[in-house]
């Protein structure tokens, strides 16, 4: 009996030993699962890059709006969304510190992985691959552009490798812009050999804005528009030839003299109430904690400007729900922004009004002052005075570069309100101090950040690796 028993036990043990524990995890797609259909996987990964870019866009507008004194984010029970960017911006762990860093590199990683998949698969034709690379490289450039805009003098990491933990160098702001412009050119090269259409779906933000950027040719125009923007930035930061390059790039875009009808032609990120899609979280419908910074409210003549009347939730705007002023951490906001009224209002990436403003800037600094002032006048007329309003103006006929810059900044502030430019613009023209003059801000001890410092995690990771290349600027122990 004993023998029988032990035999039985051994048999059961052997059965169990051979028992399979191979469970599959159904919660998320696997790499191997995706590769069962590489063409579709590549398509989904490319659209994933477009979607992730969009996911970061609203936060960018919110945080740049705080740094650039467009808005206060008066989050109802947490003042740190104000004190973070307005006062405690030197702290690596403050709210909004490190904005446009991890999220943008996360999307860079998405694009990096998608490029590897596109390059390695045989399920795509060369033209399809070129189209994919053109879009992916353009979005890598765009993501790094936002990183660089947020970092200013700190610079940015521009490389990526397979090793997710690699400590790669932080290059200077100037080098980062150069890298971005080169990356855009590389993408343009890809697009030029991409045939007539993309094999992956381009969302409506590439076509519904009046620009057919959902084809390689149209997307090439979008690529050039970004190139023009980057070159103008470089120009204002001291690159002698860049404004001319910017003008050339503009020639490859959908730019046309500004009218009320064409000012919004451009490329957008889109939102939807569909399941697992996103809502516009800086819209009036979704976010009732954003308040217009009083510096905007107090621009001379602004209340008659149609841009202000469109983009601020006052009677007559698209956002007519009564508003209340709010006071938090010692500062008061009176009006709420209405730039994006509904929860699915698209946010522009770049549109004709910006292209015309870029052209005005490039024309002025390449000697075409008449053309420049004509463009600014068109902006005032076609955007600031289209609905019975009177456009705000500071220097209708500037007599110096400084006066032109002041006027340009005013027009860009109003035309591109809540599109992520004001802070970066004031910095590149070395006029950040003008953003720090509001009495209640001064009383509250607020100062204007020249950049959003690196997030704690980046500083820590670099420190553990021995800070190759030195302690990064803005990290503890590094240059301020």
């Amino acid at each position, binding site marked *: 009996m*004993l023998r029988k*028993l032990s035999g039985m036990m051994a048999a*059961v043990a052997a059965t*169990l030993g051979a*028992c399979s*524990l*191979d469970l599959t*995890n159904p*919660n*998320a*797609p*696997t790499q191997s699962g*995706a590769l069962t259909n590489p063409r579709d996987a590549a398509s*989904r*990964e490319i*659209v*994933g890059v477009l*979607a*992730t870019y*969009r996911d970061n866009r609203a936060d960018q507008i919110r945080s740049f709006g705080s740094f650039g004194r467009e808005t206060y984010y008066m989050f*109802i029970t947490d*003042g*740190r969304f104000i004190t973070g960017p307005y006062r405690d911006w030197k702290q690596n*762990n403050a709210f909004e510190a490190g904005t446009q*860093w*991890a999220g943008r*590199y*996360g999307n*860079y*990683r*998405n694009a990096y992985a998608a490029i590897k998949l596109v390059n390695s698969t045989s399920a795509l034709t060369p033209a399809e691959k070129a189209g994919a690379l053109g879009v992916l490289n353009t979005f890598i450039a765009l993501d790094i552009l936002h990183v660089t805009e947020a970092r200013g003098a700190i610079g940015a990491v521009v490389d990526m490798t397979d090793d*997710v933990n*690699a400590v*790669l160098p932080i290059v200077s702001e100037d080098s980062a812009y150069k890298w971005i412009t080169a990356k855009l050119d590389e993408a343009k090269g890809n697009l030029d050999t991409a045939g007539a259409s993309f094999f992956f779906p*381009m*969302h409506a933000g590439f076509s519904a804005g009046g620009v057919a950027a959902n084809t390689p040719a149209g997307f090439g125009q979008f690529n050039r528009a970004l190139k023009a923007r980057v070159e103008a930035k470089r120009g204002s930061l001291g690159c002698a030839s860049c404004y001319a390059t910017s003008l050339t790039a503009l020639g490859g875009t959908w730019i046309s003299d500004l009218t009320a009808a064409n000012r919004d032609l451009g490329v957008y990120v*889109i939102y*939807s*109430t569909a*399941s*697992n899609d*996103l*809502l516009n979280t800086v819209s009036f419908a*979704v976010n*009732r904690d954003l308040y217009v910074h009083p510096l905007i409210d107090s621009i001379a003549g602004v209340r008659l400007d149609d841009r202000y009347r469109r983009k601020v939730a006052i009677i007559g705007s698209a956002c007519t729900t009564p508003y*209340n002023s*709010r*006071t*938090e*951490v*010692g500062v*008061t906001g009176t009006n709420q922004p209405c730039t994006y009224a509904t929860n699915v209002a698209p946010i522009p990436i770049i549109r004709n009004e910006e292209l015309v403003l870029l052209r005005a800037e490039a024309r002025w600094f390449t000697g075409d002052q008449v053309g420049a002032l004509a463009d600014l006048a068109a902006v005032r007329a076609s955007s600031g005075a289209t609905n019975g309003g009177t456009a705000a103006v500071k220097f209708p006929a500037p007599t110096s570069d400084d006066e032109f810059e002041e006027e340009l900044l005013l027009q860009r502030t109003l035309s591109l309100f809540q599109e992520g430019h004001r802070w970066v613009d004031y910095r590149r023209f070395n006029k950040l101090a003008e953003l720090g003059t509001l009495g*209640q801000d001064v*009383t509250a001890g607020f100062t204007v950040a020249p950049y959003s410092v690196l997030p*704690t*995690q980046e500083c*820590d*990771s*670099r420190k*553990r690796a021995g800070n190759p290349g030195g302690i990064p600027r803005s990290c503890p122990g590094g240059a301020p």
Partner: protein
Amino acid sequence: MTRPLLLAAALLALGLAPARASAQGREVTGRVTRTLGQVPVGLATITEVGGQGVAQSGADGDFRITVAPGDVRLLIRAIGYQRKEVTVKAGESNVTVTLDEDPFKLEAVVVTGQATTLERRNATTATVQVTNDELTRAPAQSLEQAMQGKVPGATISMNSGAPGGGAQVQIRGVTSILGNGQPLFVLDGVIISNDAISDGANSVTGAGSRSSPSGIGGIQDALVNRLADLNPAEIESIEVLKSAAATAMYGSRATNGVVIIRSKRGTGGVPRFNLTSRIGRSTAYRLLGTRQFTTVTQVAELPYGNGSTGVAQMNALYPSGQIPFTHDYEDEFYSNSHPSYEVTGSFSGGTAATQYYVNLTSRDEVGTAPRTGARLYALRTNVDQSFLEGKIKVNVGLNVTRNSLNRGLSNNDNTCTSPIYCFAYTPGVINLDSLDATGTYVRNPFNGGGSTVSNPFETFQYLRVNELVFRQIGTLGASWAVLSRGPHQISVTATGGLDRAQVSGDLFSPSFLQYESPTATDGFSGRAVRTEGNIFNYNLSVLGTWNYQPWNGISFTTTGGFSWASQYNRVLRDRARGLLPGVETTNSGTLRDGSDSVYADFRNISLDASEQVQALSERLTLGGGIRADRSSADGDRRKYYLFPRASASYRFTDLGDLFNEVKLRGGWARTGNRPRYGDRDLLLRTGSNIGGTATLVQATVAGNADIKPETLTEIEAGADVTFLRRRLQFEGTGYRRKITDLLLQPATIPSGGLTNLVVNGGELSNIGLELGLSAAAVQSRDVDLTLRATFAKNKQEIKNLPSFVPRFPAPGSFGAAFGRNYISPGGRTTWVWGNVPLDANGNPLPIGTLITDPSAVAATRDTVAGDANPDFVMAFSSSLRWKRLTLAWTMDWRKGGVVADMTRTLWDEGGTSRDYDDPITRETMGDGWDLNAPATYKLGSVTYPYTQGSFRYNSWSNGSDVRAYLENGTYVRVRDISLSYEAPSGVVQELGARSLRVTFQARNPFVFTHYWSFDPEYNNFGATNLNRFIDLAPYPSNRQFFLSVNVGW
């Protein structure tokens, strides 16, 4: 000398007492009673010393045993009584044995393996047993609450005062940072689920982001862990295995301790009925109170404009500008006084071969907030059957539970719907608990008004957040005495069962509620969430045991076998936002979304072998074993991980009257904690949809195909001393645990594009001491008095982390502004890190310096601001019987350990805290403050005098000095008290009953603490390994008083 003793113990524990008649023996009958009071003692084990006779007494204390001819000695043992040997002379056939009570439970049986046990007197490790009497001393919200103060070395915290439970148990400190940190709960051999599933409260509170499907429910939703479905009334005892040497038989699921729960079983004999009725109520206590407002101006000028939006309404309400009366909303809100009740009826009985036990409980715990409560129905049936004269024994248990929980909202929120959170920003100057002319609740005009806030009185009237659980636990045990020949005894046992729970969440937030209309802050009006959680666990183990007693005084027990366990937990959620009026289903909303996630899907296979030796007349006990585990959670699913264990004890007996007996014991073992579900998988992730296209993106956390279990190695040593004529017992245990191969999720460099890796590495260490002193101070006919005090202290250190793992904050916190644990080499897991202002030399400045002397602040650094670890925890319990009256109570004392009192932050920020206007004094502010505050401060253009609330809040300075809201968590509290009266037998018999007891019971009657908010043991994030000190707007604490009547027939 006690040849069959061990066998008997082992077999009895398996319900295997062989009732074999010896051909040449004689029969002895007898009766076992308690010395004091002649109460029959059932379930006593009677063994023939040096012979083969074994018997068990029935419920009436009677037994019948067949023994060898001639003079024999019988050993009588029963749990709760001291053992006794009696001589039965050759001519005697009847014997009466009286047993003395055993206040230290040395005769109790403790588990040493899945099929082996030992008497506690011989145990080689520290043991803790909690009996039914102790568990049911007062009604408890959940089993954990019933255990509080009774398990030295375990930290048992309720997460809030909400009805129905929600608690966490941590044994001997933090054993894992990211892995599972809860003990393994085993009910009658079945590994039961302790999962917690959200019902979707986050869709209302927005405590975490609520826009995406993953935000339908969240960790801050005041979750109820499934232990809440267990009915303490049907539990016979709980044994808490703390030592690794004891838990290692559970291999890779054992590092957090194992809680062995035994349900009540039938004892045979005539049917017995027992009915217990309890009625009582909960009352909120330690409510926060409110600031008293006297003028409209005072409200209008509340910080952050909290009052400004209500000014028009206030001017209408108080034309004079004077406010005569301030509402204490909390006091008005948490005032539900409906009675709670519990009715338990049971019957048991049977024959020698068949025993049954049936229990039915109906419990209704009414919460202090309107329309909240927990409703439990539980039915248990246990049947024991023996065949072939006891050679085969089968026991079957079935437990069916319906548990319905309505807990409302509590904890963190971002929509002003969690009452304590919202009241903090709502000055008590309008009557929120009233209807306007149209019949709707008055709107809360403050703190922004409109749909950004709510009126909790309205919310709790109409919002439904229900969790309905149907649970079935089935247990099956079978044993077969294969062979009994000479010194050899062989048996096979199979134990297993299943645990199935269906958890249905039902949330309906109608569109007319203030925070929903015209639209909620997420843009939708009205929402419904359906949650279906499916939990299905089963396990089976088969073990063979060979007991060999070569000669008297020595025995070997060898066990070998295997076990299989499977766990499954899947949750489907369906949400609709933007509902049609009055429609509650999820298929009618503007936006419908949902999620489908497997939370756990595990299979484990293990092999186990163990040896237990008793020698030198049971003075020496040795135990050892090894378990080999492989799991679907491991990177390598084919690899067996080994978990060895060894322990020993030696008793020095008969040392005289001063020291009666000294036992030294020690053990060493290694246990594991398997990786989490999904850690091994290298995953992509679904990104957000755009333009109707579903997308693929990189997973932010990269899985690890080589992941393996965390490993804990423990050395334990202890001594148990019985002295002063067995009146006092001391138990002392020290341990040192080392946990390596920790599951870590180090952050990658952000510019690399991912956020985390999953790796094994690093080392934690725990050193601790557990002491207990019990006294049977008085034992006499009229008076029994037992006293017990325990002391526990644990200190934890993070020894090291791999070089590539940066220090990182423990998950589940609100960051440096409110404090959190940091995993930093050389630090403690319990240190609270947060922002602290420093002077030019890097030294911390007194709290308040940001206000009193801002120029002295050179920097603000995220550094160690306190330690959440208590200096020690002591517990005291006592039972005093005087004639028919018995008074029993449990008390515990926690000394030290800081708590992040975020509740107070809210109330100061809202300008409504009860002491807001009080003067700033050393006595009220506590130590560590610089009190030289300037007289006034400016808000906008208005100047205000500094008072306690504004000074404290501004000193915190939006998180720049975390210490302003770190408070000492010391408390002394009485956990439970019962005072019972046993009716005299004359009265009882007149009523036709067997027994009658009337008891007054109280839970949490007294708490003494300087803590400002409700309870320093509460935690916003529920069951977490770390960051267990974050108090944020919980459901308030309550005390409960009950009157209970117990009748037996």
